[in-house]
């Protein structure tokens, strides 16, 4: 398995390594390092002085041995490194931890307002939420393709009117907006928790918005 290394350039060092062992060490070093390793760096692995030519030959041998596997040994600008083949990518992509990112409360509330009260301007949203709506919130929802500007309200400043899109319905598995949780149901939900405050939602325009 391990032919003794012909002493090319290491004059009788005490720990003379077989080529097999040298390759093992090179392989271990390259597999543990994500950064490419130049030959000059790889030489540091050994006590004895190994010529760059020798290492280069061994690396070429290793490269051949690793061919037709999911990982290949390649040379890039700054040296040698192992990397996965393109063929593996679709499989490995399935593994990459699907982080569960969450939208902020501002994003969700804005979305809810747009969904239930569309079309609405940013001002409407701010009025309902009682706080300002940052552009990034609307940008997030627009970028996601869940809302878009469907027009402008004909008031000074011509604010954009936002509505939810078909894509939003698709992503939430809804056929139409009517499949959103109905407001009545939620009203009773609120009423249940705040039973004694008689503030019926169906107030006759007591507080005209804006």
């Amino acid at each position, binding site marked *: 398995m391990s032919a003794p290394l012909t002493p090319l350039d290491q004059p009788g060092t005490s720990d003379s390594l077989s080529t097999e062992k040298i390759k093992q060490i090179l392989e271990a070093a390259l597999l543990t390092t994500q950064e490419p390793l130049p030959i000059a760096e790889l030489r540091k692995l050994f006590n004895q002085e190994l010529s760059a030519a020798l290492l280069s030959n061994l690396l070429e041998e290793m490269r051949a041995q690793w061919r037709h596997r999911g990982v290949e040994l390649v040379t890039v600008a700054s040296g040698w490194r*192992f990397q996965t083949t393109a063929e593996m990518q679709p499989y490995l992509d399935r593994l990459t931890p699907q982080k569960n990112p969450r939208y902020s409360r501002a994003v969700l509330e804005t979305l*809810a307002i747009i969904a239930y009260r*569309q079309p609405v301007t940013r001002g409407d949203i701010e009025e309902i939420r009682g706080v300002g709506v940052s552009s990034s919130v609307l940008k997030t929802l627009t970028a996601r393709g869940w809302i878009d500007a469907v027009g402008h309200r004909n008031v000074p400043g011509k604010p954009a009117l936002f509505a939810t899109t078909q894509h939003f319905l698709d992503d939430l598995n809804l056929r139409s907006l009517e499949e959103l949780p109905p407001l009545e149901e939620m009203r009773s939900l609120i009423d249940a928790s*705040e039973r004694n405050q008689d503030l019926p939602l169906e107030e006759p325009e007591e*507080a005209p918005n804006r």
Partner: protein
Amino acid sequence: MEIPQDLYIPPDALEVFLDTFQGPLDLLLYLIRKHNLEILDIPMAELTKQYMAYVAMMRVDQLELAAEYLLMTALLIEIKSRMLLPSPKTETQEEEHDPRAELVRRLLEYEQMKKAAMRLNELPQAERDFAVIQVWMEQTVAQSLPNINLDDLRHAWVTILARAKINRHHQVKRETLSVRAYMSQVLRDLRGQEQVEFYDLFSPMATVAEVVVTFLAILELAKELLIEISQSQAFGMIYVRSLNAA
């Protein structure tokens, strides 16, 4: 390094001594094990005296550690004094209680953990004794986007409503959702067009309910000044145009 041969450590070796021993328990354990002192034979007085000396030396910069040694000293004195006293032979006393028992228990437990720590340290340890493999891989993974479900939306809306109830001037009025949806649809239909014929806003496939809702949506849009409905003569063509800035 000079390891204490007995209980006395010369003052100039104190720093080394403090580095060598983790605390009074460790020192006591060392003395007992290394010098084969039976805990029984420990000359308590001498040991106590020397502990007091260490404490005096440590008091300046290692107050907390000094306190630990002081505590041990106190404990040793207590054990010694109790052992010197004749044990009262009361009838109710079940078993003669060895005053050293608790200290011995602690010493043994500490020794056990000390040994365990050494054995743990002998186990192969990542980074120290082996390296974990990690091959370079192109990160092509698209940034995954948050998903929401109906409950998230419902929750958001409930929160808004609850807040709106507190801030009375931020009333949220109830409205038929479908009208709102059709309002958006009508605006979409009008987008990019000069004006649209009224009838074109209704889908030929629409159900009666849809027609009604669409009609309500158009009225609502007009009320909110989002669209303008015009008719040049009675029974003539009705045109709808968006009042957008466009």
